[in-house]
């Protein structure tokens, strides 16, 4: 063995000599190969990863693969255009050209702004429009010419509006992003905008429908009777292709001939004599009217004698009293003024299948004593059998409760039989069907609002109208009945103090235990 080793040494020294001569920088080729493999494999992966991601976001005809691989699983599909709109846009002729122009730079940061529900939705419109619809963002400060392009006559004040403009064949409708939502009215009065539902698609689709079709009907709101606003109801009508106009209550009140529907929305004072005769005349020619009145501090002493006189022709009477619900099963949050009312069997379909609806500070709407058989009158909603009434005593400025319990009707429908043009009269003893407050608070999907929409549909035979439901934004409030200050305090202690401290202690214990092993 030793001889072999010696030979090794000799070999070694020979090789060394030759090696040093051969070249000082001789490096194992295998190392070079490994290096090449290492670098090239990384570069290949880098290219694949970048290519994959770029392919996903590459836009061809304004749509990318990612748009097809986007799944809107939110309960209401906030950022997806619904089938109703898609079907309508598909039904338009191929050469239709709808321009939606945002008169501002495309918002970069969508998060927590109204645009987070608008910008993606408009993009979805484009990808579903088969090229009939385009969305542009053009800032008029950079391109002033856009204003005259959209509004050559200068009718609208577009320059400073920051609105969206829907433009079809020279006609435009402006849409204010802020108005694409309904807000919680309770917070609104303090200046906070807490959105309750998203009506972006409703706004844009009805604008598209109205620009491509024109309004089919016109509804007139009577103003000047201490009534509430009607912005939300107008939105709803607009989405049903019904335009909204106003007429002032006055002594020489006339109803325009194009009036398809007259609305007295939450009035607080009585009508005038001329109104009474004009409305009677209007109804005798097949007119349609919706009246809503409630019993509230603004109108406790108003008994609406002239209105009741008018309504007595249709066998309806609005009483000057407040309904008190004594049945706890009908009370909402143990409140005997904000209660549930049962929908009459014939009208359950109108309420979208709901058998009970909400009412608030309601007056009883009962049958009058009309002797005529041709008057067909039916209650729309009734209270439980345990409701009672209370009336206002101006002498003491107090409400006086009547102990007698019974069932009261809160809404009535009346029409005539045997005439070619029967009137349609709907009277609500509560404002929970038509008021802005209510619609803002509960959104367009609420059963009460659905009910209102369905009776308007029925009256105006507007069944084919394109209506997109408002999309409820999630309500993140927790059930206040289940938590109180105690539970909150306990949870605060557990989550912010005990749990972290416990973990720290556990850490210290483990550390000390192991330190001395």
């Amino acid at each position: 063995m030793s001889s072999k080793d010696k030979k090794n040494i000799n070999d070694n020294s020979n090789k060394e000599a030759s090696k040093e001569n051969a070249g000082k920088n001789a490096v194992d080729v295998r190392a070079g190969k490994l290096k090449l493999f290492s670098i090239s494999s990384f570069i290949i992966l880098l290219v694949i990863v970048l290519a994959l991601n770029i392919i996903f976001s590459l836009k061809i005809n304004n749509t990318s693969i990612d748009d097809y691989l986007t799944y809107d699983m939110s309960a209401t599909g906030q950022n997806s255009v619904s089938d109703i709109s898609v079907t309508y846009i598909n039904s338009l002729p191929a050469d239709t050209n709808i321009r939606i122009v945002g008169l501002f730079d495309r918002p970069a940061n969508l998060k927590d702004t109204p645009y987070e529900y608008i910008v993606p939705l408009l993009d979805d419109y484009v990808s579903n429009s088969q090229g009939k619809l385009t969305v542009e963002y053009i800032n008029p400060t950079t391109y002033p010419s856009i204003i005259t392009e959209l509004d050559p006559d200068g009718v609208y004040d577009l320059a400073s509006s920051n609105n969206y403009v829907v433009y079809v064949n020279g006609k435009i409708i402006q849409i204010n992003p802020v108005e694409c939502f309904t807000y919680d009215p309770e917070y609104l009065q303090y200046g906070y905008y807490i959105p309750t539902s998203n009506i972006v698609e409703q706004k844009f689709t009805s604008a598209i429908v109205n620009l491509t079709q024109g309004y089919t009907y016109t509804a007139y709101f009577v103003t000047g009777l201490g009534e509430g606003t009607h912005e939300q109801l107008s939105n709803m009508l607009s989405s049903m292709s019904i335009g909204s106009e106003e007429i002032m209550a006055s002594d020489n009140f006339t109803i325009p001939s194009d009036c398809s529907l007259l609305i007295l929305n939450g009035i607080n004072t009585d009508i005038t004599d001329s109104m009474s005769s004009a409305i009677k005349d209007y109804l005798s020619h097949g007119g349609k009217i919706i009246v809503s009145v409630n019993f509230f501090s603004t109108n406790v002493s108003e008994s609406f004698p002239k209105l009741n006189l008018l309504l007595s022709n249709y066998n309806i009477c609005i009483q000057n009293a407040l309904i008190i619900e004594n049945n706890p099963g009908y009370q909402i949050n143990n409140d005997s003024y904000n209660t549930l009312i049962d929908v009459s069997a014939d009208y359950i379909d109108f309420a979208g299948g709901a058998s009970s609806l909400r009412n608030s500070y309601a007056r009883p709407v009962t049958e009058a004593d009309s002797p005529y058989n041709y008057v067909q009158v039916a209650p729309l909603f009734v209270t439980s059998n345990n409701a009672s009434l209370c009336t206002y005593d101006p002498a003491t400025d107090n409400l006086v409760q009547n102990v007698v319990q019974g069932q009261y009707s809160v809404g009535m429908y009346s029409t005539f039989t045997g005439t070619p043009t029967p009137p349609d009269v709907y009277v609500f003893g509560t404002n929970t069907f038509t008021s802005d407050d209510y619609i803002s608070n509960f959104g367009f999907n609420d059963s009460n609002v659905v009910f209102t929409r369905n009776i308007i549909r029925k009256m105006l035979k507007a069944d084919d109208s394109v209506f997109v439901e408002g999309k409820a934004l999630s309500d993140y409030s927790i059930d206040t009945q289940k938590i109180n200050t105690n539970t909150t305090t306990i949870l605060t202690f557990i989550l912010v103090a005990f749990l972290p401290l416990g973990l720290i202690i556990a850490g210290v214990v483990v550390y000390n235990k192991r330190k001395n092993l």
Partner: protein
Amino acid sequence: MLAIYKRELASYFRSPVGYVAMALFSFLSGFLFINQYGDGMVNISTEIMSLTSFFVVIIPVITMGLFAEDKKRGTEVIFYTNPISMFEVVLGKFFAAITLIAILFINVFIHMIITAFSGGVVNVGTWGSVIVYFCLAILFTSIGVFASSISDTQIVSAIICFVTILVIQLLKTVSTLASAGVTSLLSSSVFKLEPDAINRASNNVANAIAWFSPFTKTQDFRYGVFSISPLVFCLSMALLFLFLTYRILEKKRWSQK
């Protein structure tokens, strides 16, 4: 891989690091939750989104030691001289860090349960936020693993990781600044460009920079609007960083230095 994973995960709980991280996270998340809970409105998505902005601190702490400590202690010899692939080592350490981040997330699950019992909302958007949390965690952890592999001390690796995540968080702001910069540069009379062209150029710059932001890509998840590309982006980028880490460790096999 399992051997490395088990050791790394256990080591988080042998030293105070894991406990401090858990305590810190449960305090933070608990504070965010109680703040909302006291107001009677709980949106778990908001809580999760706020927590993801703490990744910039949490992830460097969790990942800084993964490779740097082995290099300092000389224990990396074990990985090189045993029949185990370096990629397994990288994955084992990476998954250990991810598991710790998932353990931290148990806090949020507790909050979700409390919310559900209190009649609050735990909806598809909440789960979308959970997906975003883990996607970002995977991406940032892979960056932390990478940072740990290219530096010899924990502090340096933590700083590299911190800065990288910070830049990613600020990409949106950076893109706005860059676009403003491009606009003012091109607007100078030297170029004589149409305002339209300037606008387009600055928009393109902004979009190109913002394209890399995983926050922008995943912002719709919290509303329950899911898309595939942000997931592909986060996971593929994470894979890229892990592979790069693997290559850097493998360098010892052929490096002449």
